[in-house]
């Protein structure tokens, strides 16, 4: 066997070249880091039109004429923040929905504190969610609204739609786990062996840092090493740095997870797989998926390491709806929402699907008292530019003005 020559000289010259590049990059990088960076998230203007405890309902100001008869409510997960849907101008699912003419609402679950540790699935689904939906129905004087759930928020939306089908016109679920009997996702494997009672009884709420550490452990090579190597390599690129910081801000901006929700979600779903088997009971009522009869659009990612396709795709086989569709995109868990490329495939698809099913809604009977906001709020109201929602509600958040900065390119999901 002949011994081949190792190109040591070439390797060394490359090393020298690299070290020169690193030096120049570090110099430029320090200028970028010390300069003015735009890393603000969620800039699309909205008003908080309803608030109950820590939970707020955001209503986005229209960017164009509203072209849908039925408003859309987006329910995000309790893990991380809904700001992921509105990372920056030009890279925002919220903007795309508004540009399509959708009247858009979104739940902001807030930051649970120690006193929220006893709030379980029933309180979130039959409590907060139901009140918010009643509020929107009341404001628009309609019987049904469109509902879109994301990840755990999608599971909440599925449960809600099965329990209250009379209030939901169309249901969209995205990267939503419903089948927990799979070994494909690491979370599914790990959660089976967690002594959730011990954790919740000790910690109360599940601390966000513990949760984030767990997520980092799902892929340490990429999330703890490669990601930051990439950052160092692009230190001199202001747009890259801004996008990276924005994304990192969002990733580690995690609220604690209310203890009882965590306990019930792990026990009922991950350990018992009760939802698909129609064995789940919430608030004393059985969640029967056959009662989920509205049109259903189920979207998930082919390379999702948190909620693998196996956890999502079987939902449509269990629901009572005749109009149902699965869409699998070639991306991961959050790539759908943060990458410009997949936003193109994702947001317009939902908008079109909703448009096809957007008939003039029936006018609702007089609104119940319970649909009124729990906590009448009226902070920082800038009502001069927006259409008032209703007499009873008052906006609480100061609308955020959009800056006229050019849209940035996406970071690596």
């Amino acid at each position: 066997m002949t011994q081949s020559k190792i190109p040591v000289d070439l390797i060394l010259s490359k090393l020298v070249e690299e070290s020169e590049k690193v030096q120049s990059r570090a110099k430029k990088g320090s200028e970028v880091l010390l300069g003015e960076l735009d890393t603000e998230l969620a800039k699309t203007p909205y008003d908080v039109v309803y608030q109950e405890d820590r939970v707020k309902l955001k209503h986005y100001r229209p960017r164009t004429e509203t072209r849908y008869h039925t408003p859309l409510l987006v329910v995000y997960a309790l893990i991380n923040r809904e700001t992921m849907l509105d990372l920056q101008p030009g890279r925002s699912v919220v903007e795309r929905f508004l540009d399509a003419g959708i009247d858009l609402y979104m739940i902001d679950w807030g930051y649970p504190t120690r006193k929220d540790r006893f709030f379980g699935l029933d309180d979130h689904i039959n409590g907060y969610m139901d009140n918010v939906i009643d509020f929107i129905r009341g404001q628009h004087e309609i019987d049904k609204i469109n509902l879109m759930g994301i990840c755990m928020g999608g599971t909440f939306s599925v449960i809600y739609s099965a329990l209250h089908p009379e209030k939901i016109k169309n249901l969209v679920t995205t990267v939503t786990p419903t089948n927990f009997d799979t070994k494909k996702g690491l979370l599914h494997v790990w959660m089976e062996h967690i002594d959730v009672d011990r954790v919740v009884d000790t910690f109360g709420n599940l601390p966000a840092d513990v949760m984030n550490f767990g997520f980092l452990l799902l892929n340490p090579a990429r999330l703890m090493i490669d990601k930051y190597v990439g950052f160092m390599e692009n230190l001199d690129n202001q747009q890259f740095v801004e996008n990276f910081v924005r994304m990192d801000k969002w990733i580690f901006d995690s609220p604690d997870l209310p203890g009882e929700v965590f306990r019930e979600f792990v026990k009922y779903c991950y350990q018992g797989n009760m939802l698909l088997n129609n064995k789940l009971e919430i608030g004393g009522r059985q969640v029967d998926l056959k009662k989920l009869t509205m049109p259903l659009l189920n979207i998930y990612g082919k390379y999702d390491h948190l909620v693998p396709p196996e956890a999502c795709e079987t939902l449509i086989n269990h629901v009572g709806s005749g109009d149902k569709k699965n869409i699998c995109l070639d991306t991961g868990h959050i790539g759908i929402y943060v990458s410009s490329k997949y936003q193109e495939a994702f947001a317009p698809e939902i908008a079109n699907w909703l448009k096809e099913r957007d008939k003039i809604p029936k006018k609702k009977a007089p609104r119940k008292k319970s649909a009124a906001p729990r906590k009448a709020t009226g902070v920082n109201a800038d009502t001069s530019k927006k259409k008032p929602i209703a007499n009873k509600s008052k906006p609480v958040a100061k609308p955020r003005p959009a800056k006229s900065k050019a849209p940035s390119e996406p970071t690596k999901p």
Partner: protein
Amino acid sequence: MNDNTEGAFDITSALDTWMKSYNDLWGNMANQWETILGQSPAEKKGHVNISTMQSGMAALLKNWQSITTAMSTPESADALFKGSSAFPEVLLKLAQTSVGSFAEMQQNIFQRLGRIGDSVKAYEFQDIDENIFRMWTDIYEKEFRQFLQVPQLGLLRGYQEKICQTIDKFNLFQANLSEFLRMLGLPFNHSLQVMQEKMSKMAEEGKLSEDIQAHYRMWIKVLEGHFMTLFQTPEYVEVLARTINSLADFSAAKDAVFEDMLMAFPVAKKTEVDEMGRELYELKKRLRRLEQQSDR
């Protein structure tokens, strides 16, 4: 009585040497203390201005010196050993435990060292259970833990028990965490070895890239693969669960000690706040039910 004369003699002489140095230490400390006070022992006698604390400290140091002086003579130590049959047995048992455990660890280390140089198979973690931290945990649980579980007596019994329990839970958490971290380090070792093998093969075939980035990308890919394989193993899942459980146990034990300490301060305890939170939660629920009923 199992009196091993030769062993007892060795222990006694060792103890004697140690006691002598200990005695010197206490003597020096007593002298230093007196120097600090600025008085000779003769002047100190009957001095009324020496504070209670100072005189107490001086007395304590003198007491320690007396005791260690008495114990440092071979006769006293011998008498002490002969008078108490339990003491040498306890010492012997402790020594046996430590030596035995150490030998077991050493044996295991040698076994592990012996395996170095074996060919590395990519994406396999079959020897994962042979680790030193698990063994240390076993030894701790079997041999040392019992010392922290000795029944406590007296007025402060409850507090002492909680402190011992916290130390115990901390030790267990540390042991489990070490094992967990060691496991997280495995993919790095494996991936580096796999890379070495790959690179030497590529060098033999003349395919070695001069681009450092290419090697980095290859390594990250291999590392990711190893992590993914490790995370699916039952051993990893078990260690992860054990680490989380022991962290929860330690936190609960630590909270119990802090709650005792907080009793001295005019602040609400964690359990009290939680109870209040629960009451508030139930009251809110009740209020909402009543609101809904009144709406109908």
